[in-house]
């Protein structure tokens, strides 16, 4: 680990640092050991997830979806070095003067929907879509970048993709009042870029109806 790395986020399973790396600023994500888990199991899971996250990021990059470029994967120390995205999150953007205008929201919604459609086309499920995990790149004037693939996985299930969208919808409704129109625009753009949009959006309705979860036997 880089000695002058600056801790910028402490999550349930990883710490995120900002640090100089090869003449650039880089994000370093460190997954840490869990005391409750059997050490052998912990090691296996941690290393599997480091690989999974890096692969999902790279898979997106190869499908021309704007995501942080992976720089280096250090399996021994459970670290992923990746591109630092300069900019603000969509969450922050929506409370700026510009972010409150319908025009800006519509533009951003379209980009988000298109990116998510493309991501699902390559069977990547993000697993933690929130407005904090959607960034806007400063250098391009605010194009959307998907970040934090810590819970992502590969799946071709319609259900998984619908739940992915539902998680984002809940994030919108719980944190951003009056953004129903914006979310509808996201789904509209998603409908155009996702190959299985019809099935997934239909499934999304089911997921909404049951409040994410299916009925359970006692």
């Amino acid at each position, binding site marked *: 680990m880089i000695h002058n790395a600056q801790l910028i986020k402490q999550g349930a399973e990883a710490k995120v640092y900002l640090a100089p790396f090869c003449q650039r600023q880089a994000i370093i994500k460190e997954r840490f050991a869990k*005391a*409750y888990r059997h050490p052998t199991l912990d090691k296996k899971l941690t290393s599997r997830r480091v690989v999974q996250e890096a692969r999902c990021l790279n898979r997106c990059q190869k499908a021309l979806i704007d995501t942080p470029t992976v720089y280096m994967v250090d399996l021994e120390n459970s670290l992923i070095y990746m591109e630092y995205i300069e900019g603000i999150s969509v969450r922050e953007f929506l409370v700026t003067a510009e972010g409150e205008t319908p025009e800006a929201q519509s533009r951003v919604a379209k980009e988000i929907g298109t990116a998510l459609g493309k991501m699902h086309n390559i069977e990547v499920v993000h697993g933690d879509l929130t407005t904090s995990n959607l960034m806007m790149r400063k250098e391009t004037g605010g194009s959307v970048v998907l970040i934090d693939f810590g819970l992502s996985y590969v799946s071709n299930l319609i259900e998984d993709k619908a739940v992915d969208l539902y998680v984002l919808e809940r994030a919108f409704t719980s944190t951003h009042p009056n953004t129903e129109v914006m979310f509808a625009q996201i789904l509209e753009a998603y409908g155009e870029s996702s190959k299985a949009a019809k099935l997934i959006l239909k499934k999304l309705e089911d997921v909404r109806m049951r409040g994410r*979860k299916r009925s*359970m036997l*006692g």
Partner: protein
Amino acid sequence: MIALGLEGSANKLGIGLIQHDMTTSPPTVTILANVRHTYHPPPGEGFLPKDTALHHRSHILELIRNALADAKITPKEIDVICFTKGPGMGGPLTSVATVARTLALMWKKELVGVNHCVGHIEMGRQITGAENPVVLYVSGGNTQVIAYAEKRYRIFGEALDIAVGNCLDRFARVLNLPNDPAPGYNIEQLAKKGTKLVDLPYTVKGMDVSFSGVLSYIETNAPALLASGEYTEADLCFSLQETVFAMLVETTERAMAHIGSKEVLIVGGVGCNMRLQQMMDQMASQRGGKVFATDERFCIDNGIMIAQAGILAYQTGYTTPLEKTWCTQRFRTDEVFVAWRE
């Protein structure tokens, strides 16, 4: 105020009597009686609805008499009769509900239909004093990570296929472990002697978990692993527990991180497992938090929890009219309007 609680959604038949002294604020809660009778099928077999319902029918009256005797009260002193409306197995549920209805008519009492899962949560909160915990509800039929928000117990994560208790019970059958006192208990005891970890499938999707993969893997491979002499039955029980419990603790932690809570309450039959409690405690300590758990009297299905959840609803003016006292096998935790909490 006194409530009678009748529970029989699975193989345990439980009768409880609880008293809330409404002259204090909050009410002083006293458990007057908590009796239980469990149906144990022969080793290697699960409990079938028909046999379980028969068991409940044959023991319920005697059990109610015992509860009244323990509490030293007469039916006259009871204010409300609470029964499990669901979720659970149809036959056993209705056999108990029938008795609840009959008693209510005979004794002229109000009825309150209770959600079994909410019963577990309210009992856990009452016993442990946990204020606003993330709840891990783990039993033979349910696996849910729950948190309270805006008058509902919301499900953040759950098992996508079989419940964790079901997974453990079914493996106990593979090893032909006795169903007495409980298959999961016997797995827990055997696991204490295990040392070697078998690499098993581990399936977590966000806040959801899946146990069918790990169960079918260990069911299929157990005979060969044992025959090779490399692993003992204890090792397999140990490995299964270590793996499935890690999945539960992981998703619980994720929910805690998500809502910013530092408390976790474990309820349901699997919640008695000491290893699960220990792992949860290690997780909570790493986050600077705390675990609340109850012992077998309250985490295993019982009548008191139904009485407790029922009396809380009753205190807000809620009753279940006779024509709506039917039971339902499916009854989601988040369908219940939690009027008694802020």
